[in-house]
Structures are given as structure tokens and as C-alpha cells.
């Protein structure tokens, strides 16, 4: 099936526009290598959406297909309700994106690069250049040549390039790359403020902690397939709770807890225990653990419940878990 066939498929429902991004059966191959394998992806409007996956999982390829930078081999897709590639121009007029490392004409200033891009957009885009530069905090350096910019500044300029189109949808591929901690903090705040303005931000990143802090929902992609997607809170809700216990006699403590019906998996660690409890564990269960230990004469120095992080969950669900380093 070719990209042209994709457009002509009559039996697939047209997008009703309720999704910012909607793909069905999207596929892209490079020879025998399947980079995107029948992906069904639904990204709701007005949220920050994380798009996660190990290296080589097909994240950037999917973004490139969505943006018309390369052609799909099969499937349908729509951006902001516009079917692409049929209405690619209308869709992309409302989209801003950074794909891979943002690169610009090094001999031009940041402002001139944006003028070049604004000229390819609607006339109003030219009037947004200064505001965009100001928003990413490089207005002061706007008239310096880009060849003198640091990686972080080019990253910011890339975001400014997205903003000149006043986009409803931003697709940011590794936007934190090259940013210092303060820059990452600023970027996180900016993404949240963009979402607060009603825009949709799709964030592809390896920095799971940043994604967890920034995004409302995520999709996990591995070997070209979406293996999980949904709100972060819902996805993590199904994960187990770990109780970290620092105590005086870990071996005896383990024996005491093994005699209860807590349904916990107990591992002895240096100086204590790691007790893995079911996802729906209540505070009363934690209190019961403390009571059993104290009653059994175990000195408890610390007892801390630890909810699974996005990172640990990501490692659990992706096939890279257990791969040799």
C-alpha cells in the first residue's frame, strides 16, 4: 500500500476533529526494517502528551510521518481533524514542530531565520517573531548569528520557530536537549503555559522524569508499536507500591511478615526490607506492617511507601528491560 492508497481508502471514518492527533494502522518501513508498525494513536486536544520509547523505537519516524517529512507506507492519520497528507497544508498551518536537533542557517541571525520561516506562513506570523523570541527568552540575542548560539539557544530558537505560527498543536522532539537545569525548568513551565492556553503539546523525550512532571498523558512506543497509552495517573495506578523499611533485624522481620496474609513480596536489602504490595494497598495495610514489626520486637527506623515512577513503569513495560547494557 502506498501513501496515495492511504488517502483513497473510503472505509475509514473521517476524523471528527476531537483529537489533536489520530492515526490508524500507520506504518513506515525502511527496507526490511519496520520503523512504525500499524500504530493507532489518539492524542486528545488541550493536553501535554508524552511520547516515550527506547532508542530506535520509532518515535521520530512517527513524528516525521505525521508532519509529512516522509511518506507513510500504510494507514491513515489526521492532525487537528485534517486528514493528512490530503489536507497537509491546512493542518501544518496550525502546527509547530521541532524534529531531531533544531538546525538553522548559521550565517543568519535568529531573527532572520524566523523571518524566513514566517514568510512561508501566513502574513500574521511575521508580527509574532519578537513575541516568540521573548517567550523563549532569547530576544536579547535575536540579532546574533545562529552560528554563535549554544545548543540550548538553538533549542529555544526552535521552539520560537514553532510559536510564530500560533499553533494549536506543538510537536517537540527532545526539546530538553542541550538545556541546563534552569532552561529545563523554564521549558517545562512554558509547555505547561502553552497547554494552559488551550494548545496541545506532544513531547517526545527520553527524560522520563521531565515527562512525568510535564505531561498529562503518555504513549509508550517500542519496536514500532504503541504498547500502552493513556493518562499518566491511570497508567501508574495499576502499578505496585513498594514499602521501604529500615529495621534492626531484616531476616527476622521478613519471617514475621511472611506469616501474615498481607500478600506482599518481601526482599531483604542492606539494612532493611523492600516490601512490594498490590496497587490498591491502603494506609491500613501499611499500619499493619508497622504493627507486626514493632510487636515482634523489631526496631523500625524508617518506613516509607514509594509509588512506582514513570521510569520504573517504562522499564517494566518496554522490551528493553533486562537487555544487556
Amino acid at each position, binding site marked *: 500500500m502506498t501513501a496515495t492508497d492511504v488517502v483513497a481508502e473510503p472505509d475509514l471514518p473521517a476524523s471528527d476533529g476531537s483529537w489533536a492527533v489520530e492515526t490508524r494502522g500507520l506504518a513506515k518501513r525502511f527496507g526490511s526494517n519496520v520503523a512504525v508498525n500499524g500504530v493507532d494513536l489518539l492524542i486528545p486536544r488541550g493536553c501535554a502528551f508524552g511520547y516515550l520509547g527506547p532508542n530506535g523505537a520509532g518515535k521520530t519516524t512517527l513524528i*516525521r510521518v505525521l*508532519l*509529512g*517529512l*516522509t*511518506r507513510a507506507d500504510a494507514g491513515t492519520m489526521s492532525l487537528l481533524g485534517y486528514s493528512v497528507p490530503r489536507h*497537509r*497544508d*491546512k*493542518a*501544518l*498551518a496550525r*502546527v*509547530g*514542530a521541532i*524534529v*531531531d*536537533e*533544531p*538546525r*538553522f*542557517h*548559521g*550565517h*543568519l541571525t535568529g531573527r*532572520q*531565520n524566523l*523571518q*524566513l*520561516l514566517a*514568510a*512561508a*506562513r501566513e502574513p500574521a506570523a511575521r508580527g509574532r517573531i519578537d513575541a516568540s523570541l521573548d517567550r523563549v527568552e532569547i530576544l536579547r540575542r535575536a540579532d546574533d548569528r545562529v552560528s554563535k548560539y549554544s545548543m540550548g539557544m538553538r533549542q529555544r530558537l526552535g521552539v520560537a*520557530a514553532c510559536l510564530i*505560527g500560533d499553533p494549536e498543536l506543538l510537536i517537540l522532539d527532545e526539546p530538553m536537549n542541550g538545556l541546563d537545569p534552569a532552561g529545563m525548568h523554564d521549558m517545562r513551565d512554558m509547555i505547561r503555559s502553552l497547554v494552559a492556553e488551550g494548545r496541545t503539546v506532544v513531547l517526545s523525550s527520553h527524560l522520563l522524569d521531565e515527562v512525568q512532571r510535564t505531561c498529562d498523558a503518555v504513549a509508550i512506543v517500542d519496536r514500532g508499536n504503541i504498547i500502552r497509552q493513556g493518562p499518566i495517573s491511570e497508567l501508574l495506578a495499576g502499578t505496585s507500591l513498594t514499602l521501604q523499611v529500615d529495621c534492626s533485624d531484616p531476616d527476622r522481620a521478613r519471617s514475621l511478615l511472611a506469616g501474615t496474609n498481607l500478600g506482599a513480596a518481601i526482599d531483604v536489602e542492606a539494612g532493611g526490607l523492600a516490601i512490594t504490595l498490590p496497587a490498591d494497598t491502603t494506609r491500613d495495610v501499611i499500619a499493619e506492617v508497622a504493627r507486626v514489626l514493632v510487636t515482634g520486637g523489631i526496631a523500625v527506623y524508617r518506613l516509607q511507601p514509594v509509588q512506582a515512577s514513570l521510569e520504573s513503569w517504562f522499564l517494566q513495560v518496554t522490551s528493553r528491560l533486562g537487555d544487556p547494557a
Partner: protein
Amino acid sequence: MIATRFLELRKRRGLMITLVLVTVGFPTVFLAVRLLLHAVAPKTYGPAGGYSIYTAMSAGVLYTFGFIVAATLGCTAGSVDLSDGMFRHLVITGRSRLAIYLARIPAGLAIIVSLVAVGFTIVCAVCVYAAPSKLSYNGVTVPAGLSQSGLESWAADNATEVLCGFSYNGQSKQGVGCDNGPGGSARVVIAGPGGRPVPASADQAKAAAIDIAQQNYPDYKKQFLYPSNSLMIKTGLWIELEATIGFVVGLGLGSLLGQRTVAVILMIVLEIILTPIAIRTRIPHFINGQRGIVGVATAHLEPAQLPLAFGGGGQDFRVTESTTTAICVILAWLIGWTVLGAWRMMTRDA
């Protein structure tokens, strides 16, 4: 969009310096040196301008190097978005790739056409205003712009210079000729008794000089002190056409290959190796192929008063073609390379 494409090219400092040096700087320096030398030592160094300098600078320098720098600019315009990573940004704007490609054509032409025009204007100005006041024809100082009767009249008054300086076929009228005596003084002679040269009479010398002037007039009338206005206009348009072709073909090739260096090398090979060979050599069974080379077609459109481009010498094309064919070949190259470049840009992964 055209204005920003123009800005992007204009801001390429190294490229622009090269373009200005070749199209404006080289002719300017060459002519300035000639002006200076003539001002310092007018007897040793001839005038800076004149017809011969004009033809050398226009058909020899601006034509060939104008094409090469235009091609370099075209190859740059066709490939830098890709190599600089801007192509992706431009595609993401949603603007059609065809429009992005086509915007480069007027932007690039605005640069190269104006630069070539400046260089050519300097050449014209110097060649006209610093032209010699008298024409040197076969080493004889002759008034310029004479009609045939005027040249004959002048020859009658300057019979010795004509008979001893002008070239002529075989014997002149009534066997009158030039005898350069042992002292270096030339005299007009005629065969006397026993074949010994004796001084010719004034009437015999005049008649012979008029005869030689008639023989030389077709060649003489091609000699000018400086180029005419119509020749300068025709030459300017011809050089601009060559530069336009260089830019458009370079743009298409640069876009097709996606990188500048190889594209520029190919364009230079086309201009300074393939085209001269195609013009001068008649390759059996490949005449139509030779006619299909754009340089052969543009050389065919060269103004008649100029020496053949690429040093062929005159209008004696070994590969001949009609003007219609030449125009069709040029249009085919312009349209063909634009279509190829645009097609590659529209189908390329960004």
C-alpha cells in the same frame, strides 16, 4: 518569501564576495590597471577601452565566468536548505514544497542578474569612454567608421600606408606594390623595364590604393573604436541569458543532488570542458546530441560582431543549428531542470 530567500543568499558573505569579485571586481581591476598604465605611459600602453577589449571582456570573461558564478549561486540555493537543516522547518510550515522551490528563482536571479549587469556596465563604460581615438588597422592608423567611398578616398590620399600596410590578394592593380628600401623607408613602386621596380606615379599609386581599400572594406567595417549601443544591448542580454541559464540549471542540479560541491564541479565541467568541445568538434552520429548542449545553443545566439565564445574564432560554427532550435534547446534546459529540481524537492524526505 522571495525577499527572505534573497536575504538568505545575500547574507552568505563568502559566496557574495566571490560573486562580486568575479563579476565586478575582476573586470574593474583589469580595466583600472589599463587606465592607469595608459595614463602613465600612453605611448607604451594603449587605451584601456576600445572594441577589442570590449569583445574580450564580454565574450571571453563575463560570458564564461558569469555562467560559472551563476551556477555556483544556483547550486547553493538549491542545496543549502537541506545541508543547513532548514528544509525540514520550511516543510513543517505547510507551505507547498513547489512554492518554496520556485521562490528561489527570482531571489537568485535578482542577485546574479544585477551583479552581471554592474560588471558589464563597467566594461561598457570603460570601453566607450576610454576607447582609442584612432583605429589601428593592420598597423596603420585609419579613421574609424568610414563608408566604403570614404575609405577609398582616404586610401587615395594615403597610398603609401595602404600599399605597404594593408593586406591584399596577389598583385595590386597594374603591378603597383610596396618596396621597403634598405634604409627602412617604404616607397610605392611598379615593375619597370627588365622587371626592376621603379617609383610608381601618383595616379598609379592612388588607383592601386583604392583597389586595396575595396578589398579590405568588408574586414575594415567590422573594426570599431568602441562598441555600438545596439551591440552593447545585445551583448548584455546575451550575457544575462547565459547567467540565467547557469543559475536555473545550477538550482535544479543542486536540488537534485542535495549537495553543492559536486553540483558546482559538474557545472564547471559542462561550461569549460564539454561545451567548448561540443562547439568545436563534429562528433559523427552525435550532432543532434551536440546541438542539445545548452552552451552550443547560447553560443549560436551570440551577437554577430563578437568573436565566437570559447575562442572558436568568428561565426564559423562546426555544429550549426537554426535559431529556433537554439531557443528550443535553451527553453528545454530551463524548464527541464526546474521540473527536475522541483520534483526532487517535492519527493525528498525532509
